[in-house]
Each structure stands twice: as C-alpha cells, then as structure tokens.
C-alpha cells in the first residue's frame, strides 16, 4: 500500500499510531480572565494622576492628521476612519484647532451689487477684519446721503437753476403756441383742448360756431374756413411735434443739473469712505462704480424725501431697509471680527468649522427670497454663506455619513474641492426644478482643508466606488479600536480614565476601580491582551459607575461600582437573552447538556441586538449515507446560510475527502443542519462543530453533549480563531448553570482564542471549582478525543489508523460506502446513489 501523506502537520513516523497519547487538559483558571493588578498602580485614586492630553495608542492616526492638516497641496484632505466613540472627533478637533491657531486669518469676503448687471453680484476679497467696517461705512454713507442729497436739492441755488430750466420749458411751450394762436385768432379760428388732443374750430364772439349755423354759411365761405383750418392744423401738428423735443431738451438739462448737484454731495461722502480704505484696491474699484451709480440715481434719495413730506397726506414713515438703498449695501459673507495685535502682526487664526447638518444649502450657502406683492424676489443681500464660506482658509470638519446621505451635498462638496471655488446655486436649479430668475453670484475661490469623519466601511466603499474620492481625500487617518495591554499603556490608560473622570466631573476612581475598568475595557476589546480605545463606551461605563457610587454614598468610585455598572447595564439589555435561555431550559429549544449522541453536537453562536450581544448554544446534527461525495448544507439549500458558512462546509468536505480513504472514490452523502434555527446563519465559527458531528456520524461514536464547541477548521484539520469567544462560552455556561453544573460540562474552543478570554467572574469561579472546563484545541483530533473520550488515531507506518480509533472508524465507513457504490455502479453502470441504509 502506498504511503499516504499525513496532513495533520505532525511527523507521522514519530507518532507511529501511538494510542497512549496524553489527553488534553483544560485551561487553567488564570487563563480565563486576565485581571489587572491594582497593586502595581502607584496611586490611590485617579485624583493623584496627571490627566493625559489627547489619545493613547493612536500614533499612526495622529501623525496622519498632523500631516494632513499641515500639507498644503491640493487634494490632501483627510478622512478619519474608525469606529464611533473612538475619540476621533475630539482628537481631530484638538489637533486641527492647534494647527489653525498658528495659521494666518483668512481674507474676508463680501458680496456687493453689480451695478452693470444686478443678477450677477460681485464678490470682493478684503483683508481680514475689514468686511464689517466696510459694511458699516457704506451704511453710514447711505444714511448721510439720505439727508445730504435732499438738502442739496432743496438749496436756493439748485431751486433757482431748476426754476430757470422749468421756465424755459414753459416759455418754449407758450411761445410755440402763442404765435400760432395769435395767427389763428386773426382768422377767427380757435385752438381748443379736447379729451383726445387739440382741435381747431371757427369762432364767433368767443364761441365755436354751432354746426347748424356753419352749415348755413355759403359754400364758398365754408370752403375758405375749412381751408384755413386745414392749413393751421398742419402748423399745429408741427408745433405739437416740437413739444416732445423741447421736453426732451428740458429733461436733459435737468438731468445735467441733477448730476452736477448730486456729484458735489456724493464726491464728498465717497472721498471720506475712500480715504478710510485707501489701501484696499477692491474697495476703491467698488467705490468708483458706486459713485457713478449714486450720481446717476440720486433721484431715489429725493423720492424718499418727497414721500416723507407727502403734502397734506404724508406717507408712512420711510422704512430704513428701503429696498431702493439695498443696492449700496455690503453683504458680509465672511467677516472676521476685530483682529488682535500679536507681536505687531494682526492675527486671529484660521477658522475651524464643524457643520453638524451638511445639507446642500448649509454647505454651499443659499440665495433666499422674499415675497413682494405675491412674487418671490431676491437680491445680493439675500445671499447667505455656507459652511465652506465660513471655513474658507481654514478647516471644515464633517461627518461623512451625513454628507453622503444629504441629497446633492457630496457632489457639491467634491465639485467645490475639485474646482477650487464656491459657487452658490439653489438645489432647485441643480435639479432643474425651478426656473425663476435668480442670481448668479461670483464664485468665491476656495482654500479649505476638509476633514471627513466616518466608519471604516464607508471609507473603503468610497475608495472602491467613487473614482474622485482618492484624488480629493489623499490622507487617511486610521484610528485603531484597541491598544496593546502593556505596562506602559496601562499607566497611560489609567491617566486617560482620570482625564475622563475629571472632564466629566465624576468622582475619582480607586486603583481597584481603575483595574476593573481596564478589565472591562479588555472585555470590550474582546482580547485579554488589548484595551479598548472606544472612549465613548469607556466614558459611559465611568458615568454609570459614578452614578452607582453616588447611590451607595461613596466618595470614590470603587471596583464594586464598576462591576455593578456592568451588571446593571447587562441586566437592562438582558430580556431577550433571558427568554432565549428560558426556551432552552424548558426544552422548547432542544439543547442537551448531559449524555451522549451520535451525529449531534452543541455549536455556539452570537446574537447581537444593537450594542448588546450574547452567546447561545445551537444543536447541530449530521446524517451520512452512501452517495457521490456530497455534503449537503441544509442552511445553504434553503438560503438561510451565508457565504462564509457555506465556505466552512466546503472546507470540511474537502478535509474529509482528502484525509480518509484516499484510494477510494468519495462515496459519501451527508447532510448538516442547525436545528431549530429559523434565521440566517453566517460565519464559519461552527465548521469545527459540524466536522465533529460528521465524524461522529461516520464513526458511529457518540459525542458528549456536556460540551459545546466553537472554532473554524481549515483543510488540514487545524482549528482556527473565531470572534465573540467570551459571549459564546458564557452562553453555554448559563444553560449548564441553570440546569446544574455537573463538572463534566465545558467548552472546546480554538487555542488561538485563548488570549481573547476575559470571561465573567462566575465562570472563572466555576472553573476554579472544576465545575466547568474550557479546552483550547489546536486540531480536530484533539477535539474529537475530548468529545468522545476515544483516541483520534494517527496513521501508522503502514498508512493505516490504529484500530478502534475514531479516524479508523471513519475511514472504514467511507471505504464501505465506496464498496457499496462500486457494487451499485456495477449493477447499473452509473453513479446514481445507492439505496443503502442510513448509517447514523
């Protein structure tokens, strides 16, 4: 017989099928929960500790943040990824604020009217701290002109000049008419005013000749009159045509006079404001345009004055926000307050803006409208800044999930970063929903560092799905969830606890309490050798411990208060776990915790409800018979099993096929099922349990039901680490404890998970009393021996397993299936499954 390679990694020749191998021992008590030693702390309470500034164990992320905030090249925006409650927000704000404090204050920005095209307001860049002064100065200017211009136009000098112009118009009118009228009167013809214009009529004694009298006149006389009237009518037309020209000339003279008079006043006022901002070119250019416009439109200042006088019926008092004057307003979009003098240099620091609600409008700004006579109108004073405006020249911190879930926000943010400017358009326009006339404000150049804070999954989704993302967010700051539980880190962690207690105004913690918090932190990290960095959860634990300490009248938070906080929190969320346990205890869900059964084993699963998770045993059964080498995963067949679970089943199928009866065709049909499981199952943590059940079924050897098993298995039969080990162990322990601990009960878990154990004190106590055992197994062989109390068996030099070993029985069964299949195939000539009796 050819030598068959032994896949279990051990030297098969050395093993030589030794059946006397020592049985596996359960883990020792101290391995089940790594306790902090309070005695190693040099303090009595956290009050004695120097609170730590910043985070611990996040060197990589913090370096990334520092790099990202300092590098000025485009596209180097940051994405801070990590779990919520890991202190990212606080750390990033602190770091960003530190960087911002030493950065120069950004320029101010204002929108002003575009006098040439009011639909396209102009954006003016002003030195920091100038915008508010400029706005106030323009407001004062308009207030001054509202008094000064009417006063100038009320002056005797202006009135006299105006009267002269008016008089010349009247004289022009009268002289044009007087001449015609005189000549008409000489012909006994009158010029008459009618509702439709002017008319000419024959007169007699100052009255129009009546029609009947006229008709009685001799034809010749009538013709003469008509002829004269026709002639004069032509002249009248000429005179009347000249009137608009005279009026036009009059208007032009008047306009010239008004301009000259207005200019005198406006020049003085503008010169004053111009001197104030003499070193700001943009303001100088704007003032020149405003001056021209003020002179041209000086009339609006007079209209308001006349409206105030209003003759016998005075109008309502003038609204100080009269829209007429808004055209000269200054809309401050970004305006630093008065800057502090710092060593002779004006400095305020760059802005740091955190936008809680990054809607499209909150990010880019909006153009508001007001209702006037039923119509929605707008102007540049109704442009409102967004977070990008406020953060321009500094930092903008955003929650990535919120930006992505707000309609249009993500695209708008990318567009702004890519283009390097902020362009305000309404969301309605973006979606082509609104077609009303709106504004097209000048885009404002954008220099901002955006920091997105989000879950790790979001980051990877964006990297893979959004081609722009990597170009715009080149710096990833990856915040770890755990830190190694070294002595140094433990000391730092104690200071972190002290910091939270101080910041939150909590009672100080005794060193025992600090130790208890660290133990719980390790439990939170699912790793005895790590401490959780989820500051949010840690702070919650401290707050609740503080509460229970207060309830107990303690001045200091003690370890018992921490334990109580954990216990009470579990209890508050524990209802479903209790119901689950109850259904097992009442045999509604069938779980054996004593006795033996062939092809049946207790698997372990974790159920999560929000923040709370618990473990629960699940019965897994296996059935085998002759077939074509197929292992049926019933969960998969009914689409309740996820891909990872199916992968586990395929791995164990492969293991069976490559380990046993290699000279024979694989002639097994097997089925695996999670009994009484009605929801989806995923993960491969039950694959070792499924393999044990299959081996039991094939070997026809019963498995001890006092054990529950967890761990995945690879093709070489090695048991591999899984997640949620503590919850899983506790889940089966609770079932056993409820039914009474027998001393035979226990858990088989992957050896590589041993370092993750942070079990509850009651389990540790039960283990100490040898009432509950936890075995850390490295291979399937180790596990099956514990479960069946039979040797697994290793192939001897002859390539055979020792007789009466589990493996020998499995191989024998598979060979029997192969023989039966061959016999069946010889009869029918095909590979159809034989109608052999089931085996288990």
């Amino acid at each position, binding site marked *: 017989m050819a030598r068959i390679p032994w896949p279990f990694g051990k030297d098969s020749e050395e093993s030589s099928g030794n059946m006397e191998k020592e049985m596996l021992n359960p883990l020792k008590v101290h391995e089940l929960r790594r306790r902090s030693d309070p005695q190693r702390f040099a303090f009595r309470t956290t009050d004695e500790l120097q609170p730590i500034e910043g985070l611990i164990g996040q060197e990589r992320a913090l370096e990334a943040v520092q790099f990202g905030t300092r590098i000025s090249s485009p596209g180097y925006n940051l994405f801070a990824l990590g779990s919520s409650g890991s202190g990212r927000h606080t750390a990033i704000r602190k770091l960003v604020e530190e960087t911002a404090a030493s950065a120069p204050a950004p320029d101010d920005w204002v929108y002003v009217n575009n006098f040439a095209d009011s639909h396209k307001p102009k954006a003016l860049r002003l030195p920091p701290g100038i915008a508010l002064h400029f706005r106030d100065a323009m407001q004062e200017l308009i207030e001054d002109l509202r008094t000064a211009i009417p006063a100038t136009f009320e002056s005797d000098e202006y009135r006299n000049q105006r009267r002269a112009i*008016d008089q010349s118009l009247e004289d022009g009118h009268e002289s044009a008419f007087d001449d015609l009228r005189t000549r008409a009167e000489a012909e006994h013809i009158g010029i008459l005013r009618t509702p439709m214009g002017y008319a000419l009529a024959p007169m007699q004694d100052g009255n129009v000749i009546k029609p009947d009298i006229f008709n009685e006149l001799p034809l010749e006389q009538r013709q003469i009159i008509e002829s004269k009237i*026709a002639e004069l009518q032509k002249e*009248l037309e000429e005179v009347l045509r*000249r009137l*608009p020209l005279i009026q036009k000339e009059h208007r032009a003279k008047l306009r010239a006079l008004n301009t000259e008079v207005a200019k005198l006043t406006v020049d003085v006022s503008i010169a004053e404001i111009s001197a104030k901002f003499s070193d700001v070119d943009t303001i100088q250019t704007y003032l020149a345009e405003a001056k021209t416009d003020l002179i041209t439109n000086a009339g609006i200042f007079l209209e308001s004055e006349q409206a105030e006088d209003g003759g016998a019926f005075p109008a309502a008092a003038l609204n100080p926000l009269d829209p007429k004057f808004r055209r000269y307003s200054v809309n401050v979009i970004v305006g630093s307050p008065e800057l502090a003098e710092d060593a002779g240099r004006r400095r305020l620091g760059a802005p740091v803006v955190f936008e809680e609600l990054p809607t499209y409008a909150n990010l880019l700004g909006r153009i508001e409208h007001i209702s006037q006579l039923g119509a929605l109108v707008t102007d540049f004073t109704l442009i409102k800044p967004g977070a990008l405006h406020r953060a321009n020249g500094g930092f903008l911190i955003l929650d990535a999930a919120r930006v992505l879930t707000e309609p249009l926000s993500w695209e708008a943010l990318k567009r702004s970063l890519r283009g390097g400017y902020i362009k305000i358009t309404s969301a309605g326009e973006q979606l082509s929903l609104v077609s009303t006339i709106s504004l097209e404000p000048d885009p404002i150049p954008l220099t901002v560092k955006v920091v997105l804070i989000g879950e790790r999954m979001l980051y990877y989704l964006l990297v893979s799905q959004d081609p722009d993302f990597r170009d715009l967010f080149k710096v990833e700051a990856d915040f770890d969830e755990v830190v190694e539980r070294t002595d140094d880190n433990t000391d730092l962690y104690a200071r972190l606890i002290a910091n939270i207690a101080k910041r939150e105004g909590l009672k100080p913690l005794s060193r025992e309490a600090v130790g208890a918090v660290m133990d719980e932190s390790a439990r939170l990290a699912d790793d005895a050798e790590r401490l959780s960095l989820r500051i949010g959860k840690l702070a919650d634990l401290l707050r609740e411990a503080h509460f229970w300490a207060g309830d107990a009248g303690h001045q200091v938070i003690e370890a018992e208060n921490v334990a109580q906080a954990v216990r009470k929190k579990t209890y508050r969320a524990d209802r479903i776990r209790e119901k689950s346990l109850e259904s097992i205890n009442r045999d509604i869900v069938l779980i054996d915790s004593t006795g033996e059964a062939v092809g049946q084993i207790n698997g372990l699963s974790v159920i999560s409800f929000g923040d709370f998770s618990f473990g629960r045993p699940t019965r897994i059964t296996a059935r085998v018979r002759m077939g074509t080498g197929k292992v049926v995963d019933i969960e998969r067949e009914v689409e309740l099993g996820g891909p990872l679970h199916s992968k586990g089943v395929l791995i164990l199928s492969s293991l069976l096929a490559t380990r046993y009866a290699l000279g024979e065709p694989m002639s097994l049909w097997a089925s695996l099922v999670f009994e009484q499981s009605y929801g989806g199952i995923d993960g491969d943590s039950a694959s070792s349990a499924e393999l044990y059940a299959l081996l039991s079924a094939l070997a026809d050897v019963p498995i001890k039901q006092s054990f529950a098993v967890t761990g995945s298995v690879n093709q070489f039969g090695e048991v591999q680490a899984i997640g949620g080990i503590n919850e899983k162990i506790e889940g089966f322990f609770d079932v056993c404890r409820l039914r009474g601990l027998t001393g035979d009960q226990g858990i088989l878990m992957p050896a590589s998970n041993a370092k993750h154990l942070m079990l509850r004190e009651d389990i540790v106590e039960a283990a100490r009393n040898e009432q509950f055992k936890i075995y850390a197994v490295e291979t399937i062989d180790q596990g099956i021996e514990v479960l069946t109390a039979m040797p697994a068996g290793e192939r001897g030099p002859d390539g055979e397993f020792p007789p009466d070993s589990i493996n020998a029985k499995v191989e024998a069964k598979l060979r029997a299936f192969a023989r039966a299949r061959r016999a069946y195939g010889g009869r029918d000539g095909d590979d159809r499954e034989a109608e052999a009796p089931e085996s288990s």
Partner: protein
Amino acid sequence: MPAEENRKRRVLVGMGGCDIPDRMMRVAGELAAAMNAELYGLFVEEEYLLDLSGLPFAKTVGTSGQAPRALTEQLMTDALRSQANLFRRSLSDIAQKANLNLTFARARGRAARELLAVARKQDFVVLQATSTVFTVRDMMRAGRTVAAEARGIVICGQHRQAASGPVVAIDDGDETGRQTLRFAERIATTLDAPISLLVIAGSDDKASQIEARAVETLKNVKQLKFHRLASWGADELEVALQDLHPSFVVADLEGEPFTDDETASAVIRAAGAPVLLIRPEKSI
C-alpha cells in the same frame, strides 16, 4: 346771520372735459382740509366741445403731434363720459384719504358759467392753468368771473416740482390783509409749514404797522417771518416769491399785483405754487 353763511363752506373744483389735473385736485383737497370745507366736484361737458364735434371737418391732433383724427359727436360723448368717471374716481380717492365730504355733479355748458351757477358766497374755486391753451392769464380771467360769486379762487400753474417752502401771505395793508393772514394760518397749519409775510408798503412806518397787525392776528403762529418790499413792482414781487419757494400763496384778489391779468399771471407763475386769491369780505 344769513342762511347762506350757515351752510358749510365748499371747495369747488371744476373740470371741463380735457386733462385730469392731479395737482389741482390735490390742492383742492389740501384747501378743503385747511378750511374745514366740503369738496364739490363739477364736471362740465363743455358746449364748445360738442359744437366742435358737430362740425363736418372736425379733427383732433394728438398731444404729441400725431396725424389728425376725425371727430364725431359719438366719439366726443364717449370721451367726456369716460373723463367724468375718471375725475369722479380721483376726487373720491382724495376725499376719502383726507376724510372730506364730497359732492359730485355734472353739467353741460361753459365751465366758468356752470361754476358760477353753483358757487356760493363762502366757496373757494380751484382752477388749473396749462402751459398751452389755457394759460394762467386765461384762468385769471375766468377766475375773476367766478370769484364774483365766491369767497376766493385758487389758480394752479404748471408747477413741475412740489414745493415744500413756507406759506406766503401778501399784505399791502388794506382791509383784506387780516383775512388773508387768517387763511394763510389755516393752510400753514394743515401743511405744517411756516408763514412768510411779504409786506408791500411805501414806507417803513406803514410796513411796521402791517407787521404789527400780522403779529397780533397770527399770535398762535410760531414760525412767522417778514419780508419787506420797499416799493411795489411786479418784478420785485416775482423775485421775492422765487426766493421764498412757497408751498402756497395767499393774497387779496383786489390787491395791487392782481388788478390786471397780465401782471397777475406773471406773479402766479413766479410763485411756482398754488395761489389763493381772496375776495374782500366787504365786496361780497
């Protein structure tokens, strides 16, 4: 006291079917408010317009010199009806805003004659001049006729700008001066304007007497200024009025500046404001 005087004073505003003179109506409203009077609007379908439209060759030329258009009696009747409605509506708005009683009537005939027919001794009649056909001079002439039956007339020139200066009273020292001052006081109170008194006197003594009388008559007026004209002359008066930029002028219809239409119209034009000419009470 005669029954006539028991009746409430009225401000008559007549319209002859051509322009709707906004300024005239506004002045009528201010005057009615000042005099605690009722507004009386009379729309007169001018006979001459109807006669004109009956002539076979009748045509109108638009105010901007548009091509002549044939005129028919129907066209004229429709236009007059429309003008009457417009006049009534405008006047009604003014009366409503100033809380004045309004009576509106229509008549057919000659505007001056019809106004004369309805005018009572205590009424004021407001007339509007135009710069073309009906000049200030024409209005002055018509006003004299009407004023024969009324307390006074107001001539509104073609003022392009609403003035905001003082109410100017012209006093040459005769009997009517005191009445002039009282009316000026009423108008100044309504317009919330100061009073400037233009004193026309041949000597300083006479001027002082006139001023003393004014101080006594206008004892409740806080803002009163005097401007003496050393000698009577239309030119001097015109210059003085131009300098004062009055919002309203009150004078004696029989006073020296208004005895002839030519001088009167020059003075009214120089004032640049409505001019109230009071008929002396003794002559009523």
